[in-house]
């Protein structure tokens, strides 16, 4: 049984030359019981897809079903089986956290343990406070709690970690993993890649309304050669062009006194450190797994913020020559 089946889904806003193509023939299948990461930069069409699944908007073309129910004509059945954490919402200021959950129970015609859900999302202390004074993170936790009411078969989470601190993100991850163990299908959209890697069975990468990749994270990494990066802080930066000679070093960039090398295998990272150590004094080493950032970059053409200059380019800082003497 498939949880979500999307075929040729297309959404255009406006018409004529000013039309914006938000989704361009998207095909996607999410299997029952999997945790599915829906990735893409802002404006890629992630929220548009979710809005169509929930019937907030109509598709221009194509079809989508959730557990076999058409999202347009059988939206009530879809929403009965789904818990939603939307994006860009406000909670109801004058209702308490508990009243929010009671509303969802009332609307779904079910009963659930509001206290237990509030504990799961870490809001027990604030259960009976009106939400007007809640922080963004508390609002996000409450929205997640509302999505969990009635233990839905499908959980749709649109940017669930926005507004959350690192503890909150960890909580969200744990909740998702718990649910996945119980067999809940989770459809999880995000533009932050790190949070997807830890929980998702498969990911789809969306760019400008089109699917550009769909696989497990491991398979995507393997197919393109693994990528890892190392950041070495040195006293004086040598001319780093020589680093490109190493097998397995894909790109090198320099930021002030830090050399960043993106490598396709772990051994290359050692070569980079050794090479730099021979030429200058190494003061710090950070080995980062930015594999997803790299993958993302490849599929969407978006530059991760850390990459600024490429080795050997004319912008290489002048002090590089000093260091190599």
């Amino acid at each position: 049984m498939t949880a979500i089946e999307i075929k040729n889904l297309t959404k255009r806003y406006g018409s004529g030359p000013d039309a914006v193509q938000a989704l361009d023939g998207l095909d996607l299948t999410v299997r029952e019981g999997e945790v599915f990461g829906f990735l893409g930069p802002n404006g890629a069409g992630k929220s548009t897809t979710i809005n169509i699944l929930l019937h907030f908007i109509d598709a221009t073309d194509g079809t989508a079903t959730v557990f076999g129910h058409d999202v347009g004509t059988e939206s009530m059945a879809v929403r009965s089986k789904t818990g939603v954490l939307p994006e860009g919402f406000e909670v109801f200021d004058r209702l308490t956290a508990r009243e929010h959950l009671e509303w969802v129970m009332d609307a779904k015609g079910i009963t659930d343990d509001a206290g237990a859900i509030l504990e799961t999302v870490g809001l027990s202390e604030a259960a009976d406070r009106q939400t007007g004074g809640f922080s963004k993170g508390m609002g996000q936790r409450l929205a997640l709690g509302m999505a969990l009411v009635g233990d839905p078969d499908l959980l749709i989470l649109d940017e669930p970690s926005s507004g959350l601190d690192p503890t909150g993100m960890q909580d969200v991850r744990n909740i998702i993993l718990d649910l996945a163990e119980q067999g809940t299908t989770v459809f999880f959209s995000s533009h932050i890649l790190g949070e997807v890697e830890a929980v998702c069975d498969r990911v789809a990468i969306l760019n400008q309304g089109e699917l550009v990749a769909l696989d497990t994270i491991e398979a995507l990494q393997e197919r393109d050669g693994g990528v890892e990066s190392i950041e070495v802080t040195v006293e004086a930066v040598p001319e780093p062009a020589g680093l490109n000679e190493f097998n397995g070093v894909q790109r090198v960039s320099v930021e002030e006194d830090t050399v960043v090398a993106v490598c396709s295998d772990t051994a290359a990272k050692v070569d980079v450190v050794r090479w730099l150590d021979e030429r200058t004094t190494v003061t710090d080493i950070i080995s980062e797994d930015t594999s997803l950032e790299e993958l993302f970059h490849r599929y969407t053409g978006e530059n991760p913020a850390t990459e600024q200059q490429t080795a050997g380019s004319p912008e290489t800082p002048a002090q590089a020559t000093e260091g190599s003497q």
Partner: protein
Amino acid sequence: MSLLAVARRDFLDVRRAKLVWAPVALYTAFMLLFFWGQSTASDPDFYGIIWGLVGLGGVLLVPLIALVAAYLSIAGERESGQIKFTLGVPVSRTAVIGGKLLARGAVVLLGLAVSLALAVPIAMVFVPEMTIEYGDYALFALTTLAYALAYVAIAVSLSAVTGSRSRAMAAGIGFFFVFNIGWNFLPVRPIEMIEFVLDQFGMTASEELLELVYSLSPTGAYMNATELYMPTRFLEMVGNVPPSDPPFYIQGWFMVVILAAWIVVPLALANWRFSKAQLG
């Protein structure tokens, strides 16, 4: 039933908003003022007080109470994104409109009913020598509540077809000026326009037709519904004499039909529009 779920949540939410209760307090305060004014009169007139309440309440207060209570009911949710919670659960858009009408209607009607009920003991204290015609007072109260409900329905409908706070407010104020002040009180209201146009062709408009046009606005219908409970001698005194042997469409009971239409028609149109709205 999801309509009731929407209504329950919305009632809980809106009854905690102080702004909603302010106009009702205002209505009560004005009522007090009317009775106090009559207490110093030598010959206090029950119908005089009611006429004053119909005038002031009908023109200003009841529409104000209803518009304030309901103009944001749906547009506010759309602007803030709360609508994603309301419609993220299995609740139809029709149920949202119905639930909002029920909740906001309940707040407004409850507030007014308390206010109208309080008026009786207040009248007994301030103007003990005045006779209260309880049957007529009940009809006044009921038509006032129907009128208020019509305005709530209009406000909820306008709120459903506008996507933001500012547009909903503009629509509410616009409706108030066109269908209340403009329709019934300005010197260039529709009945004057009809008279003018017909006059150009050398014709005269029948009094019945003009009376009907006047009554087509909620306020006009509410004002002319006074015929149901005010004695003719009083209506003659204030210059609001119904034509003798009137056709059905300008009789008192038909005013109630017009008010009912102001509840049903805007809601039906809003439901049709809202069911197709893109809420992205």
